C-alpha cells in the first residue's frame, strides 16, 4: 500500500487516452494518404513508375521532407540524444556534421542523375547500375546486398519503435509492434512510393513540432539556457566542451564521421533513389534549402534535448531512456502523444522507404531483368506485375514484422554493418559511374564486393583504425579497387557513354 502513489504516477500514461489519442489521429491520417495514393495508382498509365517512384512527381516540399525523414531514423531520436545525454555538447557538434547531407546528396548526384534516370526510365538504384555497367553480376550483387542490409535495418527500426511505444504509452511491446508494423506495411503496400513520400512529408512536420515543443519545455523547466549550462558544468565541466567526458570524442573519431554521416550518405540507396524522383529542377533547388534547414533543426534540437536533459534528470544510467523520460516529465499528456508520434514517424519513414525499394529491387531488378524478362511488356501481363508488386511489398513487410517479435541474432548482427555496408557497396559505383567515363563493370564489381567484405572484416577485427571509424579505410579500399580494375580492363561500350554523357 505504501507504494500506491508511486504506482499511480507510473501508470498515468498507461493507456491514457490523452497520450494515445493524438497518436491514433495521426495514424488515421497516414491511412487516408495511403488510400489517396492508391486511387492515383489505379488511374495511372505506367504502373511500375507510379508504384515505385511516384511517377517522378515530387515537388520541393515533399522531396525535402521525404529525404530528411528517410534519413533521420530511430538513432536520431532515441540513440543519438541518449549519447548526447552522456557526452554533452560535444555530441551535438558530432550530430551537426549531418547538416550538408541534403545539399550533398541532391547536389552531388545532381541533375545529371535525374536526367539520366529519365532517359533510361530508371525506377531503382540498380536500374542505374544495370544501364551503366551492363553486368548481371553487378546488378545481382547490388540487389542482394541491398535486400540483406535493408531487412536487417528494418528489423532494428521496428524493435526501436516498439520499445519506444512501450516506454511512453505503457502498452506492451507486442501491441506496439503490431499497431506500428501493420500500419507501415499496409500504407506502403497499397499506396506505393507516393504514399511513402506523402506520409514522410507529414511525418517530417510532426518531427519538427515534437522537437520544438520538447526543447522549449526543457529550457523552461531548466530555468533558461544559462542556468542549464551552469548545471551541466557543475555535473561535469567536460559536458560543455567539444571533447566530452574523458576526452571520449577524440578528433580522429569525430572527423571520420564526416565520411560516415555526411559524404558517405550520398551512397545510401534509399536516399539516392529520391534524387531522381523529383518533378523538375525547381523542386530540387527548393529541397536543397528546405532539406538543409529541416535536417539542421532536427539534429540540433533533438541532440540538444538529450544533452540538456542531463540537467533536468541527472541520474539515468541508460542513455536511451532519456527521451521517453523527458517526454513524460516535460510535456503535458496531449503534447506527449504528439511528440511520441515524432520518433515513431522517423522510424516509420525510414522503414517505408526501405520497404518500397526492397520490393522494387525484387520485382524490377531481379524478376523483370533475369527471372522473367518478357513479363510486363505484353498488355495482358501487366495485371500480373500489379499483383506481384503488391504481394512482394506485403511479404517483405511481413517477414520483417515476424522477425521483430523475436529477432534472430543473425539479423541483429547484420544490422551493425548495414549503414556503412550500403555506402561501401553503392557510393563509388553511383558517383564514379556518373562522373568518370572509364568506370566499368569489372571496377564496380571489385569495388562493391571488396568494399563490403573489407567493411565486415574491419568492423569485426579492427574496430577502430588510428582512432577513426573503419568506414574511412573501407571507402578508400573500395575506391582503389574500383580504379585499378577499371583501368586494367576494357572501357565501357560507346552506347553506355552516349546515354551517360551524350546528347
Amino acid at each position: 500500500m505504501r507504494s500506491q502513489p508511486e504506482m499511480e504516477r507510473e501508470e498515468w500514461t498507461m493507456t491514457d487516452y490523452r497520450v494515445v489519442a493524438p497518436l491514433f489521429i495521426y495514424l488515421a491520417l497516414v491511412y487516408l494518404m495511403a488510400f489517396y495514393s492508391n486511387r492515383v495508382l489505379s488511374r495511372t498509365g505506367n504502373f511500375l513508375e507510379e508504384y515505385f517512384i511516384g511517377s517522378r512527381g515530387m515537388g520541393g516540399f515533399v522531396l525535402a521532407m521525404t529525404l530528411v525523414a528517410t534519413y533521420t531514423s530511430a538513432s536520431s531520436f532515441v540513440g543519438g540524444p541518449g549519447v548526447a545525454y552522456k557526452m554533452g555538447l560535444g555530441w551535438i557538434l558530432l550530430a551537426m556534421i549531418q547538416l550538408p547531407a541534403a545539399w550533398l546528396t541532391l547536389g552531388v548526384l545532381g541533375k545529371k542523375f535525374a536526367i539520366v534516370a529519365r532517359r533510361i526510365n530508371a525506377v531503382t538504384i540498380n536500374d542505374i547500375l544495370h544501364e551503366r555497367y551492363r553486368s548481371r553480376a553487378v546488378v545481382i550483387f547490388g540487389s542482394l546486398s541491398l535486400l540483406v542490409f535493408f531487412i536487417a535495418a528494418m528489423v532494428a527500426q521496428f524493435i526501436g519503435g516498439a520499445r519506444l511505444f512501450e516506454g511512453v504509452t505503457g502498452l506492451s511491446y507486442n501491441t506496439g509492434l503490431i499497431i506500428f508494423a501493420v500500419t507501415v506495411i499496409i500504407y506502403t503496400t497499397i499506396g506505393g512510393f507516393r504514399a511513402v513520400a506523402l506520409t514522410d512529408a507529414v511525418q517530417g512536420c510532426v518531427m519538427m513540432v515534437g522537437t520544438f515543443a520538447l526543447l522549449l519545455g526543457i529550457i523552461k523547466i531548466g530555468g533558461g539556457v544559462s542556468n542549464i549550462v551552469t548545471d551541466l558544468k557543475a555535473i561535469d565541466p567536460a559536458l560543455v566542451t567539444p571533447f566530452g567526458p574523458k576526452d571520449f570524442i577524440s578528433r580522429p573519431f569525430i572527423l571520420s564521421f564526416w565520411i560516415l554521416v555526411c559524404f558517405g550518405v550520398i551512397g545510401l540507396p534509399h536516399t539516392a533513389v529520391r534524387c531522381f524522383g523529383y518533378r523538375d529542377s525547381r523542386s530540387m533547388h527548393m529541397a536543397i534549402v528546405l532539406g538543409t534547414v529541416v535536417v539542421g533543426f532536427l539534429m540540433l534540437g533533438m541532440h540538444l534535448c538529450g544533452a540538456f536533459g542531463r540537467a533536468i534528470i541527472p541520474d539515468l544510467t541508460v542513455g536511451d531512456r532519456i527521451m521517453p523520460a523527458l517526454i513524460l516529465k516535460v510535456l503535458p499528456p496531449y503534447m506527449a502523444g504528439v511528440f511520441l508520434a515524432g520518433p515513431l514517424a522517423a522510424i516509420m519513414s525510414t522503414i517505408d522507404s526501405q520497404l518500397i525499394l526492397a520490393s522494387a529491387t525484387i520485382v524490377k531488378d531481379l524478376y523483370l531483368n533475369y527471372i522473367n524478362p518478357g513479363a510486363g511488356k505484353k498488355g495482358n501481363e501487366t495485371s500480373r506485375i500489379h499483383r506481384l508488386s503488391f504481394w512482394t511489398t506485403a511479404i517483405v513487410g511481413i517477414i520483417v514484422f515476424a522477425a521483430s517479435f523475436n529477432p534472430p541474432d543473425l539479423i541483429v548482427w547484420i544490422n551493425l554493418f548495414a549503414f556503412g555496408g550500403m555506402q561501401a557497396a553503392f557510393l563509388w559505383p553511383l558517383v564514379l559511374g556518373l562522373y568518370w567515363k572509364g568506370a566499368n563493370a569489372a571496377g564496380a564489381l571489385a569495388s562493391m564486393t571488396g568494399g563490403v567484405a573489407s567493411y565486415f572484416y574491419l568492423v569485426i577485427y579492427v574496430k577502430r583504425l588510428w582512432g577513426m571509424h573503419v568506414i574511412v579505410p573501407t571507402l578508400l579500399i573500395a575506391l582503389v579497387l574500383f580504379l585499378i580494375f577499371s583501368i586494367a580492363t576494357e572501357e565501357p561500350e560507346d552506347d553506355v557513354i552516349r546515354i551517360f554523357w551524350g546528347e
Partner: protein
Amino acid sequence: MMRIRKGILLQDPRFAIANREALYTLVLAFLYFAWWYLTAYGLGSSPVEEYSYIAGFPSWFFLSCIAGFIVFSILALLMVVFLFRDMPLEKPAGDGKGRMDHD
C-alpha cells in the same frame, strides 16, 4: 581500345551545368567543414574556466552548431538562387531511350 574521342561525342550541354553545380555543393560542404572545425576547436580547446558565452551557450558551441546552421542554410539558399540554373530534365520528344537516332 579507345573508341570514343571527345570530338565525336556531342555532350549534352545540360551535363556541363550539372557538373558545375555538383562542384558548388562540394565546395559549400568543405566551407562548412572549415567553419565547423575552426569555431569548435579554435574556441573550445581552452580550459572551461576561460570560456566566453553567447546567449547562454559556450561561444564555441554557439558559433559552430547554432550560427553555423543558420549561416550555411542562408549560403545554401544563395547558392541555389544565384548559381543554380533551371533546366528541363525530360528526355527530348521522339528519342525513346536517349540514344542518338542514327544508331
